[in-house]
C-alpha cells in the first residue's frame, strides 16, 4: 500500500455521502442485530437493494458497518432477555443473562462493545496484511488451482456444519443445481429455463438470499404468533468502567478469540456464529476458573465476543482474494461487488488498489464508531426491544418484496424470493442447513467454468488436475477433507446401528 493509494482512499471516504451512509448503516445494523429473529445476514440482504443506487465505496461502507454493528448488537437481547439477537451471540447469551441477574448487565454489554471492536480491528489488521500477500500468490493461479480452491471452500462449508454432513452435501448440490439455470455456462446453452425468458439470466443470488435469510425468518415468526418476548431487564452498572481492567486481565483470551475468529471467518461457509461457539468452548477449556462459566462470568464473553466480530472481517479475505465467500454475509457482498464492477480476485489488488484500501479504512472506521454507537444502543436497548414483532414482521416482508423487485425490476424476482423463502423454511424444519445452498448458488458458475476449462485443458485426464504444484497440494488437501468426511460419516452410521 503506497502513501498515494492511502491518500486516494482517504479522499474517497472523506466524502460526506460515505460518512452519512456509515451513520445510517450503523443505526440500521444495531436495530436489526438487537431484534431477536432478525440476523446480521438479513440486515445485509435487506441493505442490498438500497446499495444498488450508490457508488461502490458507500455501498461497501453500508454493508461493512451494518454487519459489524449487527453482530455486536445481537449481544443486547442476549444479556437482557436471554434471547440472542443474532445466532452469533447464542454461544454466550446464557452467560450474559446470568451476569444481568447479578446486576452486571452494564459490564457484560460493555465487554460486548469493547471486545467486539477489539476483535473487529484485529480481524481487519489480518485482512489488511494477509489479503494482498495472498493475492500475490493467487496471481499465478490457473483454472486447476481455482477448481480445487472452490472444491475445498465448498467442502469446508459442509465439514463445519457438522450436524449432518449428508444433509449439508445435499443442500450444497441443490444450490449447485439452482446455479445451472440460465445461459451462464461455457457453451451458453439455455439450461432448465423451461422456455421462460425470465430464467435465461439464471437465479438471481440476491433474490434467493433475501428469500432464504429473510422470508424464511418472517415465515417462522408468523407461524409462531403469540410467543411474545418477555419485558427486557434494565441495564444496571456502568458500561465502560472496568473494561480496561478486563483488557489487562484477559489479554490472552481477547487475542486467542480474535485469532480463532479471524481464521474461522476466513474458512468458507463458517462465520461469526461458529466462531463464537468454538471460542466460548476454548475459553472455558483453558480458563483458570472453568467452574465459574455459566454463572455470570465475563471471561467467555471477552473471548467469544471478540471472535464473532473478528470473523466478520476474516470472511472478507477469501471473498476479496478469490471471490469465495467466507460466510453468508460475504456471499451477498460478492454479488454486490460484481454489480459495482469491482470484480473480486487477485487482480482487484492491482487494478483498484484505492478501492481495496478504502475498504480497509472503512473496516477500521466501522469498528471504532462501534464504541460510541454501541454505547448508545445499549442505553436505548429497552426502547428498541419494545418494538412489537407483530408490526415489525409484516413491514420486513414488504421491504423484502420491494427489495427483491428492485434487483431486476420484475415481479418474477419476487416469485423467486418467495420460492427460496419457502425452500429455506422447509429445509430448516427438516434439519438441512441453508448456507450451503447459497454457497452452491454463488460458486456454481465459477466452479463450472474452472471445471470445464480444466477438463478441456487436461483432455479429460483427472491426473492433469494434479500436475501443477499448488494445484496438486490443494487437490490432495481437498481429497483428505473428503476422505475424513466419508470416514466420519461411516463411523457415525456404524455407531448408530450398533
Amino acid at each position, binding site marked *: 500500500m503506497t502513501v498515494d493509494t492511502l491518500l486516494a482512499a482517504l479522499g474517497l471516504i472523506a466524502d460526506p455521502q460515505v460518512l452519512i451512509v456509515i451513520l445510517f448503516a450503523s443505526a440500521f445494523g444495531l436495530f436489526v442485530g438487537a431484534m431477536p429473529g432478525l440476523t446480521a445476514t438479513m440486515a445485509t440482504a435487506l441493505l442490498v*437493494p*438500497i446499495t*444498488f*443506487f450508490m457508488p461502490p465505496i458507500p455501498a461497501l461502507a453500508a454493508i461493512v458497518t451494518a454487519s459489524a454493528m449487527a453482530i455486536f448488537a445481537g449481544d443486547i437481547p442476549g444479556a437482557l432477555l436471554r434471547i440472542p439477537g443474532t445466532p452469533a451471540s447464542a454461544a454466550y447469551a446464557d452467560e450474559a443473562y446470568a451476569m444481568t441477574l447479578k446486576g452486571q448487565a452494564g459490564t457484560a454489554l460493555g465487554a460486548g462493545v469493547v471486545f467486539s471492536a477489539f476483535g473487529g480491528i484485529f480481524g481487519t489488521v489480518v485482512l489488511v496484511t494477509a489479503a494482498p500477500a495472498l493475492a500475490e500468490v493467487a496471481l499465478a493461479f490457473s483454472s486447476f488451482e481455482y477448481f480445487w480452491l472452490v472444491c475445498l471452500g465448498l467442502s469446508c462449508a459442509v465439514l463445519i456444519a457438522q450436524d449432518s454432513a*449428508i*444433509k449439508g*452435501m*445435499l443442500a450444497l*448440490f*441443490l444450490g*449447485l*443445481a439452482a446455479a*445451472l439455470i440460465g445461459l451462464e*455456462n*461455457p*457453451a451458453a*446453452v439455455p*439450461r*432448465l429455463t423451461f422456455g421462460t425468458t425470465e430464467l435465461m439470466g439464471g437465479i438471481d443470488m440476491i433474490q434467493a438470499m433475501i428469500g432464504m435469510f429473510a*422470508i424464511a425468518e*418472517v*415465515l417462522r415468526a*408468523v*407461524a*409462531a*404468533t*403469540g410467543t411474545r418476548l418477555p419485558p427486557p431487564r434494565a441495564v444496571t452498572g456502568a458500561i465502560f468502567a472496568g473494561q480496561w481492567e478486563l483488557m489487562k486481565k484477559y489479554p490472552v483470551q481477547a487475542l486467542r478469540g480474535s485469532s480463532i475468529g479471524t481464521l474461522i471467518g476466513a474458512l468458507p461457509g463458517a462465520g461469526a456464529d461458529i466462531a463464537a461457539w468454538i471460542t466460548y468452548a476454548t475459553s472455558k477449556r483453558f480458563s483458570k476458573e472453568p467452574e465459574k462459566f455459566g454463572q455470570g462470568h465475563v471471561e467467555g464473553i471477552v473471548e467469544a465476543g471478540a471472535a464473532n466480530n473478528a470473523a466478520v472481517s476474516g470472511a472478507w479475505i477469501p471473498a476479496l482474494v478469490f471471490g469465495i465467500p467466507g460466510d453468508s454475509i460475504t456471499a451477498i457482498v460478492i454479488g454486490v461487488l460484481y454489480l459495482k464492477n469491482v470484480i473480486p480476485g487477485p487482480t482487484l489488488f492491482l487494478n483498484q488498489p484505492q478501492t481495496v484500501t478504502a475498504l480497509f479504512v472503512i473496516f477500521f472506521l466501522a469498528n471504532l464508531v462501534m464504541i460510541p454507537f454501541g454505547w448508545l444502543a445499549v442505553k436505548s436497548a429497552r426502547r428498541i426491544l419494545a418494538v*412489537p414483532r*407483530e*408490526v415489525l*414482521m*409484516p*413491514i420486513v*416482508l*414488504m421491504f423484502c*418484496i*420491494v427489495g427483491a*423487485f*428492485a434487483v431486476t*425490476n420484475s*415481479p*418474477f424476482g*419476487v416469485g423467486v424470493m*418467495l420460492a427460496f423463502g*419457502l425452500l429455506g423454511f*422447509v429445509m430448516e*424444519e*427438516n434439519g438441512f442447513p441453508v448456507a450451503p445452498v447459497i454457497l452452491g448458488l454463488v460458486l456454481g458458475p465459477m*466452479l*463450472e467454468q474452472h*471445471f*470445464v476449462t480444466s*477438463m*478441456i485443458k487436461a*483432455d*479429460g485426464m483427472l491426473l492433469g488436475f494434479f500436475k501443477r504444484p499448488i494445484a496438486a497440494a490443494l487437490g490432495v488437501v481437498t481429497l483428505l477433507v473428503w476422505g475424513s468426511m466419508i470416514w466420519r*460419516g461411516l463411523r457415525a*452410521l456404524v455407531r*448408530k*446401528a450398533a
Partner: protein
Amino acid sequence: MRLDDRLTGALLLALAIALLVYAMGLPPMPGQRYGAAAFPTVVALGLGLFSVLLIWQGWRTRRPGAPLFAWAGWVKDSRNLGNFLLSLALVGVYVAASDKIGFIPLSLAILFALFVRQGVTWGRAAAIAALATAAIQYAFASLLRVPLPRGLLDSIL
C-alpha cells in the same frame, strides 16, 4: 412439514435422475468434448449419491412405527397456520397482480391484512400500513428511483 429422511432422500433421488436425463439431452459444444452437459452431469451424480446415502441413513436409524410424513407442531394451531398461509398467499398475489393493481394499493392491503391478522387493532393497523407504505414508496420510488408498479394509480402518480 417434517419428512422422514428416507422420503426426502427418495424425492431428491428422483430430482437427481431427472437432472441426469435432462443433462444427457443437452447439445455438445462444437469441437469440444466437454460442454453444457458436463457440469450438470456431475451435479446430478453428486445429488444422487448423497440422496442414496440419506435414504441409507434414514433406513439404519428408522424408528418402528414412525410415520414417513408428519406435520410440525405449529401447523396444528389454526391461527399460526392461517398466518403462514396468508403471508404466502399475499406475496403470491403481489407477484400475480402488482403490475395491474400497483404497489401502493397492494402494500396497504397486505400490511393491513397481516397486522390485523396478528392482533393489531384496526385503526392502528390502518395507520401503520399507510405510514409504512408511504415511507417505502418515498424511499424506493422517489429517492432510489425504483420503478415500483403504479397500476391503478398510474394517472395520479
